[in-house]
């Protein structure tokens, strides 16, 4: 279309030109933005490939530093804020460790590093301690490096029950750091009759005062065990759905007050919940802070057992240093030192004997050094494949979101 001739008045002509110019400016700007967006689109599309990343070259021989991401309150700390066992490790091997409490949740930690892992890049950590199911997923995706057992002679001290797990037979990719039970806890003052099984949580007196964990494998694991299913064995969607139905019923009729992650401890402390599905180590700590107020039991029909495991991310150049670190912590004396502080279950055989020398009282604590009967009653939730993870997580989350 031909544009209209400009009016004669120079003032108006000038104004129109100016208006046209600004319009052009806006148009160029939009075009530029469009080009930028296209570039982003192309960049985003190109990274969609699904090939497994390859491990980074190991520079451990020359670089004697190590970056370790772990959970809060999960290692021995002295009053000065340094880590005695790590200091001893440095004195012994010359490797200095940068220890970071970077993991506060498996999912959010994974969310932060997964894109770098997929590209085989360094995530800023040479070793991270993550829970079984997350390790299972990372191994499936090829995000972990294979450990050389020749460099970890102390691995012989690993408890036999943990040597072969379904997600990592022979422990070639992961080695346990600490573990714990999910079981039942109750407020001994307000609910003196106590609990023996998951069924007891559904007592009418506890209506609206029961808490459960937002960790699907612990809450569903306990309910499934209560329904007589071996959660480590072969079970399928049918068994899971039966447990989900029970769970859904207890949430919708108000028996279960809330479903929480780590913050369930506050609910126990302020007595919003009088009975709950809990992690063993937390109860040890809560009792230490509040004067032995809560009882804990692994239910008669079974509790869940989980471990957080050392894994070496695919992009880390310090695998050999990590192997030295693992070897060090598998010395029973060192393991006992850590166990005396963190109150979780150590996977190292012989640590109990070593603990006798440090603190005989703790060595007798069945939550830190469980006896064989307790261990026999604790089950590891079986590994899920990708499709199962999506379905089961989806069903569980829909109850948590109240959408079911």
């Amino acid at each position, binding site marked *: 279309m031909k544009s209209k001739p400009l009016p004669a008045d120079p003032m108006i002509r000038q104004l129109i030109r100016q208006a046209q110019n600004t319009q052009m*400016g806006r148009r160029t700007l939009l075009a530029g*933005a469009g080009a*930028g967006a296209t570039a*982003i689109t192309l960049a*985003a599309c190109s990274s969609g490939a699904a090939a497994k990343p390859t491990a980074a070259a190991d520079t451990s021989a020359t670089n004697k530093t190590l970056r370790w991401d772990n959970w809060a309150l999960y290692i021995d700390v002295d009053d000065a804020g340094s880590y005695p066992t790590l200091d001893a490790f440095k004195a012994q091997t010359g490797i200095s460790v940068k220890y970071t409490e970077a993991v506060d949740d498996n999912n959010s930690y994974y969310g932060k590093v997964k894109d770098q892992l997929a590209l085989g890049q360094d995530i800023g950590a040479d070793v991270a301690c993550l829970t079984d199911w997350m390790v299972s997923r990372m191994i499936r995706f090829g995000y972990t490096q294979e450990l050389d057992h020749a460099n970890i002679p102390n691995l012989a001290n690993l408890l036999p029950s943990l040597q072969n797990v379904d997600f990592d037979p022979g422990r070639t990719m992961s080695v346990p750091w600490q573990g714990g039970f999910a079981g039942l806890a109750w407020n001994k003052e307000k609910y003196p009759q106590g609990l023996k099984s998951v069924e007891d949580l559904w007592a009418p007196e506890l209506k609206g005062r029961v808490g459960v964990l937002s960790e699907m494998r612990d809450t569903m694991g306990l309910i499934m065990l209560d329904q007589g299913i071996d959660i480590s064995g072969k079970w399928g969607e049918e068994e899971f759905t039966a447990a989900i139905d029970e769970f859904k019923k207890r949430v919708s009729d108000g028996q279960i007050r*809330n479903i*929480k992650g780590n913050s369930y401890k506050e609910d126990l402390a302020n007595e*919003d919940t009088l009975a709950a599905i809990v992690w063993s180590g937390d109860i040890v700590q809560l009792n230490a802070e509040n004067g032995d107020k809560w009882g804990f039991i692994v239910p008669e029909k079974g509790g869940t057992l989980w471990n957080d495991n050392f894994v070496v991310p695919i992009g880390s150049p310090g695998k050999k240093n990590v192997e030295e670190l693992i070897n060090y912590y598998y010395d029973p004396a060192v393991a006992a030192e850590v166990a005396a502080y963190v109150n979780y279950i150590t996977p190292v055989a012989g640590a109990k004997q070593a603990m006798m020398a440090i603190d005989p009282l703790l060595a007798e604590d069945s939550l830190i050094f469980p006896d064989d009967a307790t261990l026999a009653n604790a089950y590891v939730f079986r590994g899920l494949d990708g499709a199962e993870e999506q379905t089961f997580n989806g069903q569980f989350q829909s109850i*948590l979101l109240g959408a079911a």
Partner: protein
Amino acid sequence: MAFAAFSSTAPSATAAPSTDPVARRRSPVALFLLLPGILYLVLFFLTPLVSLLLTSFQSPREFGDIGQFDYAFRWQNYVEVVTTYWPHIVRSFSYALAATFFALLISYPLAYFIGVKARKWPLLQSLMLVLVIAPFFISFLLRTLAWKQLFSDESFVVQSLKALSLLGPEAHVTGTAFSVIFGLTYNFIPFMTLPLYTTLERLDVRYLEAGNDLYASPFQVFRKITIPLSMPGIVAGTLLTFIPAAGDYINASRDFLGGTGTQMMGNVIEANFLVLQNYPSAAALSIILMTVILVIVSIYVKRSGTEELL
């Protein structure tokens, strides 16, 4: 657009006919000075937005594992999230609306007192303003956690309410719609009070006197003079409260004041993104949240006709 409500100076500056010959030319210096801002917007606004939009149309990879998606044009994602999560969408906006309403109800008299009544005592005025802002010195999360403790079953508050039979013996406060709306209202009150204060502080009381002289009742003066004159503050305050409240996921979180029955869109997005690794659903919900807010706000600003007042 909506944001014109905040930019009171921009329209007048561009509308004023420029007599300065330098400003009339397109100056490369001006463009150069704009560059950092534009770059910033492209990097931190446009890029994530485009990425979000592309993600929202992704489809699950065939035989793929959890969290594996391919770029596609799967618009059904939007249909699916709306059919699955419509209660959360409705809940988000009704909670945000309720919180905005209560915040306005509390903030207006407060701002009026500070901005108009307390003019005679500047010290009191500043002291009250400090009191409004003071909670900001403590983390938002900590304050919300504190309310959780105050509302716990064995707390003084709940026990007293039960003793007065205002609350049934089995009733709770935490994890209910009440505690979530309370938390939202409480947390966003300063965002409502401050804009209201700035407009009311400039309110010319002679208009009110004139209205009074013309035999208007106090209520009529308030409705016909005070409210219209403070409209920019009301609009800014309600927007600053409503927009973040609709997208909030802390107050409604099960770990804070919420329960399974109070989950809002933010919580659904979080669960889809972090736990379920269902990025397209999370992205589609985010886009829906943004669009709905944008539409509501545009209509609101247009209907309230504040452009003329600004």
